[in-house]
C-alpha cells in the first residue's frame, strides 16, 4: 500500500493539475518531472489531452519506461503519429498550442527565465545549455507552467531573482516591466510556478504570488530563498498531494527513477504522508 509520496511526485502532481482536458500540450527536453506530469494527466483527469513530446515530436506516446534522454525511440513508443519540428512550432505560432512548461537557472518575479548565460554576452561567467524552443513558445503558447527544483538559495545565491542576467523566455512583463500584451504576442504567459518550496500563481499585474507551501516548508523559508519581493496570497494553502493511485502510476511510468535526478541531493529524501494514510 502506498502511504507516502516523494517531493518529486508531489511536484509532478502539481504540474499535472495545470493541464486541462481536451487541450494541446507540449513538453521540451531534459525535464523528467514535466514528461511524467503530462503522462499522469493523460492517465487521470485529461484523457483527451493531445500530448506532444519534446525532441521526438511524437503525439500521445506510451513509453515502456522513462529514459534519461528525450530524443530516444523508447520515449516515442506507442505514439499515434509524429509532427515535424516546423509543424509543432507552427501550431504555436497559429495559436493552437494551449500549454507548455518552462524552467530557468534564474526566474524573475514576472516569470522571465534564463537558461542561456550568466555575465555579459562578451564576458561570460557561465554558459548554460540554452533554451531550445522556449523563447519562441513562451511568446506564442496559450499558457505556460513554470517550474524549478532549485528555488532554495544556495551559497547566498538566488535562483528566483530580481532580474535575470539574460531573458531566454518571456514572462508576464519584460525585464523592464513592459506588459507582454503591449508586444502583441499570442500567448498569455506563465500562470503557475511550481518549486520545491512552494507554488505561485501570477497576480493581475503579472507578478508571481505565493499560493501554497509543502508540508515541510513555510513562508519564511520561501521568503529567505526568493530574490524578488515576495507577494503572498491572502489565504495560503497547504498544497494538495497526489492520491495513492497517481503515485502508483508515476512509479510504473518511471521504474529507473529518472524523476529523482532533477532534484537536488538534499531534496530526494523529502517525503509526505498521503491524506488517506494520515
Amino acid at each position: 500500500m502506498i502511504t507516502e509520496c516523494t517531493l518529486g511526485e508531489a511536484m509532478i502532481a502539481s504540474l499535472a493539475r495545470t493541464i486541462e482536458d481536451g487541450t494541446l500540450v507540449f513538453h521540451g527536453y531534459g525535464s523528467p518531472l514535466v514528461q511524467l506530469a503530462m503522462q499522469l494527466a493523460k492517465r487521470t483527469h485529461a484523457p483527451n489531452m493531445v500530448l506532444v513530446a519534446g525532441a521526438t515530436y511524437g503525439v500521445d506516446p506510451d513509453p515502456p519506461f522513462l529514459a534519461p534522454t528525450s530524443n530516444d525511440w523508447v520515449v516515442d513508443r506507442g505514439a499515434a503519429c509524429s509532427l515535424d519540428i516546423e509543424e509543432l512550432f507552427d501550431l504555436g505560432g497559429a495559436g493552437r498550442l494551449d500549454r507548455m512548461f518552462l524552467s530557468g537557472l534564474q526566474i524573475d518575479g514576472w516569470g522571465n527565465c534564463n537558461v542561456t548565460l550568466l555575465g555579459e554576452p562578451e564576458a561570460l561567467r557561465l554558459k548554460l545549455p540554452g533554451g531550445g524552443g522556449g523563447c519562441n513558445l513562451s511568446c506564442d503558447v496559450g499558457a505556460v507552467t513554470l517550474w524549478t527544483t532549485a528555488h532554495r538559495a544556495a551559497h547566498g545565491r538566488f535562483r528566483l531573482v530580481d532580474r535575470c542576467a539574460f531573458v531566454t523566455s518571456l514572462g508576464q512583463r519584460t525585464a523592464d516591466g513592459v506588459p507582454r500584451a503591449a508586444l502583441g504576442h499570442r500567448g498569455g504567459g506563465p500562470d503557475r510556478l511550481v518549486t520545491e518550496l512552494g507554488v505561485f500563481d501570477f497576480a493581475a499585474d503579472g507578478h508571481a504570488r505565493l499560493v501554497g507551501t509543502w508540508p515541510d516548508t513555510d513562508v519564511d523559508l520561501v521568503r529567505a530563498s526568493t530574490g524578488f519581493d515576495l507577494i503572498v496570497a491572502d489565504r495560503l494553502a497547504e498544497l494538495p498531494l497526489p492520491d495513492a493511485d497517481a503515485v502508483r502510476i508515476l512509479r510504473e511510468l518511471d521504474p529507473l527513477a529518472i524523476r529523482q535526478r532533477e532534484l537536488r541531493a538534499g531534496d530526494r529524501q523529502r517525503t509526505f504522508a498521503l491524506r488517506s494514510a494520515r
Partner: protein
Amino acid sequence: MTVYTSPDKRTDLDGLVEHVRDRAVVAVGGGLSSREPMAALRALIRAGRRDLVVVGSAHGIDIDLLCGAGAVAETRESYVGFEQDFGMAPNYRRACESGAVRVRDSCCYTVVQQLRAAIQGVPFLPLRSVRGTDFLVLNPDYKTITCPFTGEELLAVPALAPDVAILHAQYGDARGNLRIEGPPVADLLFARASKKVLATVEEVVTTEELHARGGVTVPYLYVTALAEVPLGAHPTACYPHYAYDRPYTAAYLDAAAAGGDAFRGHLDRFVHVDHATYLARIGGEETRHRLASWKDGTEAWMALYGEVS
C-alpha cells in the same frame, strides 16, 4: 543553390569532408542523444577543419566534441547539453566562456523560419515571437518590421542557407536518396536549405530496397556525397541498429570535464584514428551486440540506461 545529379555519389569519410571548408556554416543533423553524424565530425576534426559556425536546434556530444577539438568559431545553436542525464557540455561551456567560441544562441522556431526563408529563396521570414527577450541583443541581424497588411509589429529573421548539412541516416542508395527512420528532427529542413548535403549511412542499399523499407526521406537531388559508415552515429543512437552508448558518453564527459591532457588523450584514442580502429576501440562486436540488445525487450532496453559505475 544547385542540385546534385551524379548517379553514384558514394565516397569514404575522407572524401566526404573534402566538401567542407574552414569557416563553413555547418548544420549538424540528428539531435541530443540520437543520430548525430559523429564519424563524419571526427573525420572533419582529423582533416583539421576549423573556425566552423555551427547552427541547429538541440545538440549534445556532437557540438561539444567539435568545440573540444578547437574546430568551432561561433555557435548559433538553441541547446547544447546532456539534459538530466549528464547536464552541461564541458567543452562547449569552456569554449564559450573563454571567448574561443562566439555565442549567438538561437531558438528552434527562429532557426526553422530562417531555414524556410532559404528554402523558399526569400530574404527573410517573419515571426511574432522573440520580441521582449534578449535574443535580439545576441543577434543584431534580427529586425523588427511593421506588417504592411495589418500594421502589427513583427520580427524579421534573415534567410539561413548553411554551407553544408552533415547528416547520418539509416539507409541510402548510391544516387544519394536517404531514408531516415524515427524522428527526423531538423534534418529535412537542413537538407533543403543547405548548399551541400553530406551524409553517412548505416547501409547503402538499392533504390528498390529503400522503397521497400518505406520510401525516401531526403531526395537525392539535395545530396552531394554519401559514405557507408556502420555505427557512424555512435555514441549517439541510430535505431533500429543501435541504442545510445551511455557508458562511452560518461567516459567521454569525464575526459571533457577534466580537459587538457585528459581530453587530448581522448582525441588521440578515439578521434585521430580511422573508423575501423575506432570501432575496435569502442569494443567491437561486443559493443555492437550490447547496443542492439534494446530489441530483446523492455528489461534489456532499460539495462542500457542503468547507472554508470
